[in-house]
């Protein structure tokens, strides 16, 4: 196609400069289409836009890049980042460096899944719908809950939606949120609940765990839910059963946030010890770190809450010939039907990441899921005990942990991270930015990706710090 100069075709007003590979219409086709429409020019099709709001100049954007130029530019930007293939990652705090089996994105990345929309035409979208049903099923299995939705935005917003759901279920106006819940989750819970008049009361931690005495004191007939995280933000294992009992005795619900679902391979699931709603982050289930997103909001609940759960639900049914098929169901909860009376405004979710999570969980299977979980536990325990022995270092908390633990450091954690980065190690999260009283505390994460040799090297570097 020959590029034309500006105003090159006076007869039709088709005025274009270059033919772009994403826009197939040629000048000849444009002319033909304009004739069918009965318009003299493309410009005429915009005659309904008042001239006062028309842009009378080209957008001020950098010149268009060809594909090779574009890729070179993006590669340069990507290369400026210290990612977890380049540095040994001991950083977690709500985003986890796990091995993603090759099958996961070879399958989830197929164009048939990637470039589909929400499955409104069920007969044509059985693949997406069935994968959603399988995801819901597997999520129920790992959490021990009765029902799970097809996904939310991320762990933090799922926790916030769980708080709102607890308010609606109980008709009560306050949630108790443990300060051992991820600080960003707590921020999001506050943002979502403030305009609804739902009061958020924070419960202090003691020895790295939610202070159950403080919970007992704070509970009242106004309490809609207690919100804990398990394992909590410090990596420590909460006494979920005790929290559930306290909540239920007061007629409140227990919401359990799970930021690291791989812990459920080895830990008794929240459904087994009385959690009413599980809200969590599914990134560790086959999804990459992605600088914080896209991630996968997980939401599961007791079966009887099914009609109050926000977001999309896939259900099995039969077709006109009696064969099993899948549809989006119980849609009267949702915004496109209920509008201002909907259980949430959520529409687009994270379906593709739920699919990846399903493929990941199926790949790991019953034995693999447990094995990966156990690897995390053992490697982190090894690292924890080794770091504890380093002179002037110590553990902040003695409670049992999964794959993260908090270290007290003799130097500012930020300074330690600077030195480790120079040695090709991405150190843990300094906690002082969220917990002023923990300005010398460092949250270290050890996943199945870390080898004993890497852990030993970290320990040696810490021992050598001056």
């Amino acid at each position, binding site marked *: 196609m020959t590029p034309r100069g500006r105003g090159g075709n006076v007869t039709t007003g088709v005025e274009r400069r270059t033919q*772009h590979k994403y826009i197939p219409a040629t000048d000849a086709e444009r002319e033909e289409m304009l004739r069918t*429409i009965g318009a003299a020019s493309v410009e005429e099709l915009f005659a309904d*836009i008042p001239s006062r709001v028309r842009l009378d100049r080209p957008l001020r954007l950098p010149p268009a890049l060809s594909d090779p130029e574009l890729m070179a530019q993006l590669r340069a930007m990507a290369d400026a980042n210290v*990612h977890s293939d380049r540095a040994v990652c001991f950083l977690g705090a709500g985003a986890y460096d796990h091995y993603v089996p090759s099958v996961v994105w070879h399958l989830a990345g197929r164009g048939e*899944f990637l470039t589909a929309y929400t499955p409104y035409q069920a007969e044509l979208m059985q693949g997406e719908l069935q994968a959603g049903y399988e995801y819901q099923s597997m999520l129920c299995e790992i959490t021990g809950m009765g029902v799970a939705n097809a996904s939310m935005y991320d762990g933090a917003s799922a926790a916030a939606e769980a708080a709102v759901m607890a308010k609606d279920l109980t008709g009560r106006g306050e949630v108790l949120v443990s300060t051992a819940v991820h600080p960003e989750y707590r921020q999001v819970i506050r943002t979502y609940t403030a305009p609804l008049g739902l009061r958020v009361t924070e419960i202090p931690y003691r020895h790295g765990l939610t202070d159950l005495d403080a919970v007992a004191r704070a509970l009242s007939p106004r309490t809609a839910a207690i919100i804990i995280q398990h394992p909590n933000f410090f990596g420590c294992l909460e006494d979920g059963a005790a929290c559930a009992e306290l909540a239920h005795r007061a007629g409140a619900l227990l919401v359990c946030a799970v930021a690291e679902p791989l812990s459920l391979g080895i830990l008794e699931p929240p459904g087994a010890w009385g959690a009413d709603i599980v809200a969590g982050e599914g990134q560790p289930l086959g999804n990459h770190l992605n600088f914080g997103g896209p991630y996968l909001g997980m939401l599961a609940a007791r079966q009887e809450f099914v009609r109050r759960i926000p977001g999309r639900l896939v259900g099995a*049914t039969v077709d006109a010939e009696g064969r099993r098929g899948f549809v989006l169901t119980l849609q009267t909860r949702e915004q496109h039907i209920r*509008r201002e009376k909907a259980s949430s405004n959520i529409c687009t979710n994270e379906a593709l990441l739920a699919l990846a999570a399903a493929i990941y969980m199926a790949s790991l299977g019953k*034995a693999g899921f447990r094995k990966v979980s156990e690897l995390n536990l053992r490697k982190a325990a090894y690292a924890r005990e080794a770091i504890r022995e380093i002179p002037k270092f110590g553990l902040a908390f003695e409670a049992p942990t999964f794959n993260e633990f908090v270290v007290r450091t003799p130097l500012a954690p930020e300074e330690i991270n600077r030195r480790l980065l120079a040695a090709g190690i991405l150190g843990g999260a300094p906690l002082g930015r969220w917990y002023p009283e923990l300005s010398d505390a460092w949250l270290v994460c050890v996943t199945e990706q870390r080898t004993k040799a890497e852990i030993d090297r970290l320990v040696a570097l810490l021992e050598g710090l001056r």
Partner: protein
Amino acid sequence: MTPFDKAQGGPRDFPVIFDFSVPGRVGSSYPNPDVPDTPLEQLIPASQLRKEPAALPEVSELDVVRHYTRLSHRNFSIDEGFYPLGSCTMKYNPKIHEDAARLAGFARLHPYAPAEGAQGALRLICELEELLAEISGMDRVTFQPAAGAHGELTGLLMIRAYFETRGERRTKVIVPDSAHGTNPATAAMVGYQVVTVKSDARGNMDVRALREVMDGSVAAIMLTNPNTLGLFEEPILDVEEIVHHAGGQLYLDGANFNAVLGVTRPGDQGFDVMHMNLHKTFTTPHGGGGPGAGAVGVKAHLAPFLPVPVVERDGERFRLDDQRPQSIGKIRAFYGNFGNLVRAYAYIRSMGADGLRQVAETAVLNANYLLARLRSRFDLPYDRLCKHEFVLSGARQKRQHGVATRDMAKRMLDYGFHAPTIYFPLIVEEAIMIEPTETESKRTLDEFADAMLAIAREAQDDPEVVKTAPHSTPVKRLDEVRAARQPDLRWRAR
């Protein structure tokens, strides 16, 4: 077109992954521990140890590959065919964007990597903000919202915070009767009373009705422009004047931004805040329902309320700033769906200013062309120039032949197309909402128009074939009532 040959389930139920499970089979490979084999009970209390392993399927790697590949064949995607879903902007999703988003430097970057180790990612976010500010005519842009509705929530929360700061108590949000369902649902989530204003005979917001309800108790109006009828709101400047005169804010639902790229900027129309669905206009793939990305642009007076953190540029250095005391806080963890920001950035850089204007012009040309080809056989409730989409009505077919819009939509599937959006907007009886996008060729548009016209003929000559459609999909029409009455939302071992 027989897209489903390989995927036909035949007379039997298509299996679920659990059906392939055989005890002892494995589908993954992990090393044995290289650290001491301490008994688990010494690491965590016995009461916390999982008693029953999660009943995940026990399948081989090939089982997984084959099952999900077959499921992919039982799906419909832009890669396979035309997807004229109105209001969804189902345009081509370039493959190079997938390669870009999967570069290890982006995909394997931890959100808490220190800023000095994330300069490339922060630069990308900062530059994308600058690009979108220019394209939209807004002053600042946040990328934290994960989707359009999440962007609406962010926008209304900022408006709420703005009025609180000024000591004004405003309790209402106005939405037109043609609005997306997310608009009123969002207003309710932010604690506002929803006031619905009807559309006028031309499909615009009724300015007289707006004048009647607009007063000092209204915090904002939420408009979509072009609106969900695919029509540009001709009285936009009147609306702007009425709302701003009473001290209210203008929120733009930017779902339909594709129609006006480089032609008119929402910031210049007077909008104070807008969301941009990067998964529509800026072609990040929909993924079967997500992830999206709902960038929110604001004018300077709302910038203090943006979610934290924002990315700030100090020359050629980039940093995250969360010291913003008036911020609404956070609406999700971290910084948003970064992977989609990479894709949107790649798109804008590959299109340039001329390319983006061509996007709008061609999307509008394609829509008007399809409308011209279809208008004789379907009712057209608002007969005007359309923008990137248009809304027909199947009322004639329903009345004359008992064939509902739902039936015609199902019949489209037999012709190898996805159906248009149907029964929305709610103000059009038997609505059929068609958005072709700029990435479709005339040939595809003609094939689609021919199919629509053939179905209109079938509705007249052979209504049964339409009413019992679809006939060629992996399953026949599904019993939605049963799905809702007897919810079966998870597989259980029988």
